[in-house]
């Protein structure tokens, strides 16, 4: 039991961050798409995330929380190394969050200002998270390929959020806005593929140990399903967007489901690469773990509350299912 705890928490942290990327990813993607909509469409786009976004961004707190609880040593190293992107991301999150509420409550003359803040905050958050991810998977090392990889990932990573945002709008809207969402998705899909490719090749490039895991036989055969399956889903997504758009508009959840699948596969691949390290080449999961007495105490908390959280999250998503109509408080 005790030996298994660090691994359990590494898994829980990965899951929380994956859920964050998917759920707040569509919020942030819609934030970046906001300037492209007409005024009524802007309202509708924001309404489509209205009941969810607060809870969605809580997943990053859980992710960082688990890092802090289970791996305090890694928490300190990672967050001090990522000081600048973390600070920028926090400012972005603050701006996005307050803009969401102020734009409907402040004087109507200020609405376009808050729309811009919503866009700017979302974009800044997405870019900083790309930077953080890029730095993390290059081992927090700013020399060699680690110098320009984070930058490349930072600028391409928001494409994933754009895709998630557009796919969410496909589900939640109809008519002109849905057609616009389809166009945005078509524009974002290739940059997203590029971002995923970069993220996939970053870890073997910086670490020969990881390269060996991926590219030597017989390991490579066992792992081949991950890139293979990801490519298939990606091709399926391209087909839906470019060849079967009518079908897609009727079964709009397909695009979002494909993206969830891609994120899941990418996360699995990444987890496999990094394991058993928590900071590549520097610190292993079991070395960084907190004392097992503390982990056991939280284990029971996670075991009881996480299923509850997931089920009431599902419950609330069900309550607000269907096409978004005008957001109303009463």
């Amino acid at each position, binding site marked *: 039991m005790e030996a298994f705890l660090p691994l359990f928490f590494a898994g829980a942290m990965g899951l929380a961050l994956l859920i964050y990327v998917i759920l707040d990813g569509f919020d942030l993607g819609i934030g970046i798409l906001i300037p492209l909509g007409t005024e009524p469409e802007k309202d509708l786009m924001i309404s489509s995330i209205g009941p969810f976004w607060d809870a969605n961004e809580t997943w990053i707190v859980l992710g960082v929380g688990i890092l*802090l609880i289970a791996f*305090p040593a890694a928490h300190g190293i990672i967050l001090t190394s990522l000081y600048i992107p973390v600070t920028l991301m926090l400012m972005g999150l603050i701006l996005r969050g307050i803009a969401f509420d102020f734009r409907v*409550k402040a004087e109507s003359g200020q609405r376009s200002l808050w729309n811009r803040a919503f866009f700017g905050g979302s974009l800044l958050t997405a870019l900083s998270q790309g930077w953080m991810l890029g730095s993390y998977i290059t081992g927090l090392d700013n020399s060699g390929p680690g110098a320009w990889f984070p930058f490349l990932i930072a600028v391409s990573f928001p494409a994933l959020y754009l895709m998630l945002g557009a796919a969410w709008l496909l589900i939640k809207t109809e008519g002109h806005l849905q057609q616009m969402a389809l166009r945005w998705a078509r524009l974002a899909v290739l940059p997203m593929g590029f971002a995923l490719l970069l993220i996939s090749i970053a870890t073997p490039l910086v670490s020969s140990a990881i390269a060996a895991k991926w590219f030597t036989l017989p390991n490579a055969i066992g792992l081949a399903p991950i890139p293979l399956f990801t490519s298939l889903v990606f091709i399926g997504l391209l087909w839906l967007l470019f060849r079967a758009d009518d079908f897609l508009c009727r079964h709009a959840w397909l695009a979002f489901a494909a993206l969830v699948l891609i994120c899941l596969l990418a996360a699995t691949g990444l987890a496999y690469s990094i394991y058993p390290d928590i900071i590549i080449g520097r610190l292993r999961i079991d070395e960084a773990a907190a004392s097992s007495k503390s982990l056991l105490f939280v284990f029971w908390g996670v075991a009881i509350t996480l299923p509850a959280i997931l089920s009431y999250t599902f419950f609330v998503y069900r309550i607000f299912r269907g096409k978004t109509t005008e957001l109303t408080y009463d």
Partner: protein
Amino acid sequence: MEFDPTVLARIQFAANISFHILFPTITIGLAWILLYFRVRYTLTGERNWEHAYYFWVKIFALSFAIGVVSGITMSFQFGTNWPGFMEQTGNIAGPLLGYEVLTAFFLEATFLGIMLFGKRRVSNRLHLVSTALVAIGTTFSAFWILSLNSWMQTPAGYILEDGVFHVDSWMAVIFNPSFPYRLAHMVIASLLTAAFLVMGVSARRMRDCVDGPATMQVFRTGLVMAMVLAPLQILVGDLHGLNTLEHQPAKIAAMEGVWETDTGVPFTLFGFPDEESRTTRMAIEIPYAASLVLTHHMDGEVLGLNEFEGEHPPVAAVFWSFRVMVAVGMAMLVSAWWAGWKLLYRRQSPSDFLLRVFSWMTFSGWVAVLAGWYVTEIGRQPWIVSGLLRTEDVVADHGSGMMLSTLTGYLALYAFVLFCYMATLRYMASKPAASLRASGQEFPRPGTEGAN
């Protein structure tokens, strides 16, 4: 110019935590007020309670959003500013923070969606349950974070091995000696802050003649709360002080400005504590009062700061913050009972002066809460964990240039958000109440009806 990075890290964290605490303080209290409105609406079917609910739930949502985003900032700043703290106390601080996220944050954030947008999609019963869950969530959140803070003040239930804290007993950690007092003091402070906020905004609406029948009901709710809670808070504060005297006597000595250990110590009403000469200049004193308050005996002994030389907090900041907190608390007590006597006992309608006073006091809770937190947090220095771990030993080394630039960025952002928050509250208060429109009266000021 070179700044001490510890000082900058502390200023940055203090700026963040000061900004953050303003909003949970409102939401913890306001959540229960909203639940009360919802319960009253459910029981009586009176639409005014529902109008009150939907006006205040918007302010709740706004405050909650700012609380969440500034709280996320804090969860990262533990690591970016105090990596040593997490490495050494992580076994204790981590799980307490973790339980806050797991039992509180998701509950609040998820069910807030139903509170805000669920009216047409869920039954009144589910709406009521959601409101209750959010209120419980805010209070759970206070429970865990105050447990951690109290543990830093009065550590218990730990074993120290090679400079790293390990848990001996979770019950002793969670229910450490100062926790029950601090939790009670903070929850009452939140309720009082929310009570004065709802009274202040309602008073503003009455003065602007945009109030409806619901506005006075809201005002009365806040008033009754304040009349009960203001005296209760003084009692709880006194008990909290006695607990601090037992566990952190240096903090009490700084609060009182007592330099030499003595019996029959006077209470210094006003003065300038001077750490150079180790005296309080221009002191105005009440004889025996400090001994009486702290030991409940006229000739009780009070330990002076000179017993803790080099290990006591900066005196002037603690001394003055304490006086500000007490003064605001007294103003709350006096104003609440004065208004209660006028409105509830003599059944007068509120005078313009009374409304003006309460509209001045809209954010009085913030002042008292900040001052109180400065007393307890500055009062803990130079320790981050009382008597065990020094703040300067756990700080991150980012270089003062980097700290200074991020600090400037944060301060500018916070000032901007705070300005917008208050301006928006002012704007929302200036719009005619929904209960006024519903009551069918002619609406006097055209053109101010905003899209909402």
